[in-house]
């Protein structure tokens, strides 16, 4: 793949977007970042200039193997770190410049589950999503409780409200964590490897639900994942990263090319076109290749 190839994709901007009708939510423009152990030390990891846009009702997958810069890009988008160069804007405002409370009203971040120190009821956990709207000690009012119930209902988990988080299954827990994100009433939802501890049924259910929620609530959804097959099936747009470089941005059909994916993921793969025009990826074992 040539350098010019990368740049045309990377700069492929607003005007060529096939979904011009939808309002643009997130604009990542030539954003870069570098981690250094000290002020004068050489950076140990660099994310080179990356650009893509996410519109409302759109699901974008950030795809790449481990240590490709996915989490760094997610942190840049969430505004926890500011880009060294370029811009990350949500509805025209730079995410890293928003104060922490406003940011929480606009961006919800769902991480891989974190261990709970003390047991909490799922309902109370979802109510935490109302924190950025409350004052002082944040006693929940009727509106907060209504929104939390609604959020649980949207992920099909109303019946879990009275259970403690610890006794939920992986899929149920993930739904409750997602409900907390919905209770924040954000414009953008970021998910970091949300399918990691889920079985395949729960993975499909989660991604279908995300697509549906993005439609209903006009969110933009950005999912960080290394699940090639799931991204191909559910993403509107794919951002492909490797070693801190953004290689391609585009629809799954445009990005999923066998040579490219094999090189990025360092695994022998088959890519075919499925019935809906979406690519299908299969892992191919190396055995008996010479026999064919």
């Amino acid at each position, binding site marked *: 793949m040539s350098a010019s190839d990368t740049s045309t994709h990377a700069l492929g901007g607003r005007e060529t977007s096939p979904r011009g009708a939808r309002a643009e939510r997130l604009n990542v423009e030539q954003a870069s970042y570098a981690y250094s152990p000290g002020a004068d030390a050489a950076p140990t990891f660099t994310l080179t200039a990356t650009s893509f846009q996410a519109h409302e009702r759109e699901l974008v997958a950030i795809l790449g193997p481990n240590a490709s810069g996915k989490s760094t890009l997610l942190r840049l988008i969430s505004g926890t770190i500011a880009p060294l160069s370029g811009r990350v804007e949500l509805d025209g405002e730079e995410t890293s410049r928003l104060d922490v409370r406003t940011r929480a009203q606009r961006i919800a971040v769902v991480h891989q589950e974190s261990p*709970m120190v003390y*047991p909490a009821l799922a309902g109370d956990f979802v109510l935490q999503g109302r*924190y950025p709207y409350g004052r002082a000690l944040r006693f929940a009012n009727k509106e907060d409780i209504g929104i939390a119930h609604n959020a649980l209902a949207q992920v099909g988990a109303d019946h879990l409200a009275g259970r403690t988080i610890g006794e939920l299954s992986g899929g149920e827990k993930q739904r409750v964590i997602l409900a907390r994100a919905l209770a924040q009433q954000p414009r953008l939802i970021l998910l970091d490897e949300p399918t990691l501890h889920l079985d395949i049924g729960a993975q499909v259910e989660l991604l279908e639900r995300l697509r549906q929620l993005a439609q209903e609530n006009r969110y933009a959804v950005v999912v960080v994942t290394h699940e090639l097959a799931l991204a191909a099936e559910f993403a509107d747009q794919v951002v492909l990263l490797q070693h801190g470089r953004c290689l391609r941005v585009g629809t799954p059909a445009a990005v999923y090319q066998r040579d490219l994916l094999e090189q990025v993921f360092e695994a022998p793969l088959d890519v075919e076109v499925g019935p809906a025009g979406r690519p299908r990826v299969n892992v191919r074992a190396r055995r008996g290749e010479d026999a064919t």
Partner: protein
Amino acid sequence: MRPLTVRRLLWICGGLAAVLLACVVLALKLGAVPISVTDLVWNLGRVAIGRSDQLPTEYRLIVFDLRLPRILLGILVGAALSVSGASFQALLRNPLADPFVLGVSSGAALGSILALIFAPQLPFVTPLGAFLGAMATIAAVYFLGRRGGELDSTTLLLGGVISASFLSAIIMFLMTTLAGRDLRGMVFWLMGDLSTPVPPGLRWIFTMGLLVGIGAIYSTSADLNLLLTGEREAIHLGVDATRVKLVVYVSASLLTALAVSASGAIGYVGLLVPHAMRLLFGSDYRVLIPASALGGAIAIVLADTLARTVVAPTELPVGAMTAMAGAPVFIYLLRRGMR
């Protein structure tokens, strides 16, 4: 869903305050000279209507000059220690954190001893030295407890235990080399003892410091709830984590320092009481902080009453009582957490 309401909060606090009042009456009644409850209520009533001059002299001496100040000190110290325990538990995300276990109490004790040695003429020197000692110790333990950028529970506790024994060794060294001091009094103070009243000039500062410290921590209790689920998550939910951690860290050190400078290193209250309150009322810090303050006061008043009466007329240091009750609970929690 069972969100916390102001009503529920007030019921819990009211209930605990009633229990505390009962404990105070009991503590006033029991002792080397027993006093009947009727007399006590009668005389307290006289004081309340401003007729304290009608009190019999021995009453005034025993109840109002000896027992009551000691009980009030116990209330303040108990509240301070258990609130700071609950705060450290949230800050370090570790249910076993406690100012005594983490070595913060020893740091405060060493700080106040050093301050007494080097600058005995300065005002407020013991609480100030204790505060600096407490801050330095918790900072040291925090950095000892980090492993690869993350706080590691086991390393943190080991760091605390090792700091505590290191600091105690220095205290022992100072105490034995500095001849001419009242060694038995010092040993009592180190074990935690309420028999020395706070000097009258310091009483207001002491009380205000405790109230400000507890108030500052309480103002962050909604943030602490979120910090307990993880710092990263809390930031994404809109918590200004750096500010909250600083406020709680300084306030909790202040509370420990004031408690230690007044009554020595009373152990395990900060561990035992918040844990009991969590079992009773849940782990929401908006309840847990006031409940721990009242519960800590109850625990110390009861423990000190026991310390005064079990082997009367000899008195035990109250720290011995709390350690006897607290150490087994600590081991129980540790073993349960390991499973």
